[in-house]
């Protein structure tokens, strides 16, 4: 039982990661791929934040009467990673817009077919 209590969080997070990962690699539509990528990354962020949690701890901002704080380091890392994530998303979506303009479609197999014709 304690085994489950210890790890349930990580297991669900793994499930979420894999759901996102599945969307990335199975989706044919490029926008959906980007959504999947975001879900994947957000779930990885959750894993980091779970690492940083201390039971009975509080948010790492000093306040009177609080002795135990959660670990601030994963928070810092994930702040960085979130911004990296949105940067990637922005560039990816911009590419999608251009692909739509160049090919008239954002379905992977369709523009592959169009390229194959050349």
């Amino acid at each position, binding site marked *: 039982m304690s085994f489950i209590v210890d790890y349930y969080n990580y297991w669900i997070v793994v499930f979420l990661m894999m759901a996102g990962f599945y969307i990335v690699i199975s989706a044919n539509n490029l926008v959906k*791929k980007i959504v999947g*990528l975001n879900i*994947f990354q957000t779930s990885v962020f959750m894993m980091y934040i779970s690492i940083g949690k201390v039971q009975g701890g509080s948010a790492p901002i000093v306040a009177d009467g609080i002795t135990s704080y959660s670990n601030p*380091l*994963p928070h810092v890392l994930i702040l*960085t990673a979130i911004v990296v994530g949105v940067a*990637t998303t922005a*560039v990816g979506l911009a*590419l999608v817009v251009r692909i739509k303009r160049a090919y008239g479609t954002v379905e992977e197999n369709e523009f592959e077919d169009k390229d194959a014709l050349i």
Partner: protein
Amino acid sequence: MFEQHFPVLPIVLPLIAAPLCMLLGRSQLAWLLATIVSGISFCIAVSLLMVTLDQGVLSYALGGWEPPWGIEMRLDVANALILSVVTGISTLVLVYAKDSIATEIPQSQHTLFYTAHLLCLTGLSGILTTGDAFNLFVFLEISSLATYTLVSLASDRRALTAAFRYLVMGTIGATFILIGVGMMYMKTGTLNMLDLAARIGEFEYNRTLNTGLAFILVGVSIKLALFPLHMWLPPAYTHAPSAVSAFLASTATKVAVYVMIRFIFTIYGAEYVFYSMGMDVILLVLAIVAIFNCSFVATVQSNVKTMLAYSSVAQIGYMILGISLVTTAGLMAGLLHIFNHALMKGALFMAVGAVFMRTGSADIKAFRGLGKTMPWTMAAFTIAGLSIIGVPLTAGFVSKWYLVTAALEQQHWMIAFLVLIGSLLAIVYIGRILEAAYFKDPVQSASDKTIKEAPLMMLVPMWILAVANIYFGIDTSLSVTAADAAANWLFEPSAQAVFQSASQSASELGAAR
């Protein structure tokens, strides 16, 4: 007064130059600034290489916070060597790019090209210099984002899909690395590489750490295009602007190989990775399959850039092969090949870029008769091509020689034999182009406009690399000494023990609480 800041300057200089480029607005000025900054970075990198050869290791604590609390820049021979290659190639590519991108990228985008190039250089230098596992991820993403931009700058619409595929694969790879770093952090409580190494050394076998390593290796393998995760590379290199292909082919994947070496040898330690987890067999098999599969695929390509891209994947196989031999000699051959391959592929892609500029095509048909019309370009191509094959007196021969020797040292006759077969395949694919260039008449339809030799600004960097191929094929003292020192350095845990004391005090601090 800046000597003590040298470790951080190859990152900071391009980083400052990038926004300045954007502010300048004029593409000529941007080009000048980018080239000068890249050149200065190169000089600094070479001086760093000299210092590290001399003194061993340079550590630089950013913000004045001692590691592991702050981020550390850490230079040893291994990364100083690759840093010199990267900054050097970057400078040459920038010189080359001025004329090259004039025909391939619209005028209004030139400033952005230089800005993105500088950001990419920042990222690559950062990956190489940093001593912090998470910081590495950040710089990896800087370089990747800049790379996606650079690839998509080409006018061909297939560049867009190539860039997108690259983006998706690259982000998956980066996220895998992030997962791996998270697992390492979870078990050790630190992010500094040497501190990690010290703490991972305490574990003999741990499932979380194993998984972390597996994810990092898969993530890095995507970035370095290890077979079978290489599918993003050929389209990206084929459709990118020529200058970008030349830069990426000779630097980006090499940096990723370096990351793999770092994680395997410095952080986890060869013993953990190879003996506890048995990764060497997997890497060995993948490397050999990569060499053969991709060399074969290269022989049937009609687009020369695609062919070179597949050849790159095959050559990466040689590097990984060197690593997977798990000996100092093998690792040294791998490192040497990183260095030499950068010289070859840089020259080859530059030559193809020149051909593309003059003929408007990178198809093998376009190469017909170029031996007469573009003699200098084709001569450079020939030299670099011979180097890829591994003809004696070229740099390619040196690294293959060391690779074969390393394999024979371990009594791996088969591997040595397979390396030679791989070279035969290289003869086939390079030979096809040389045949077209020197022994076939030009296609008639293109005859109405005469094909001129490439402009001087493109020939000079190309020839510098071609000559370097010969120079490092004859005088191996610098490259071999550096690679040897680096390999010894990476393999010898005692050499890294300098850090132990600091790490110990850290753990004592932790224990005291």
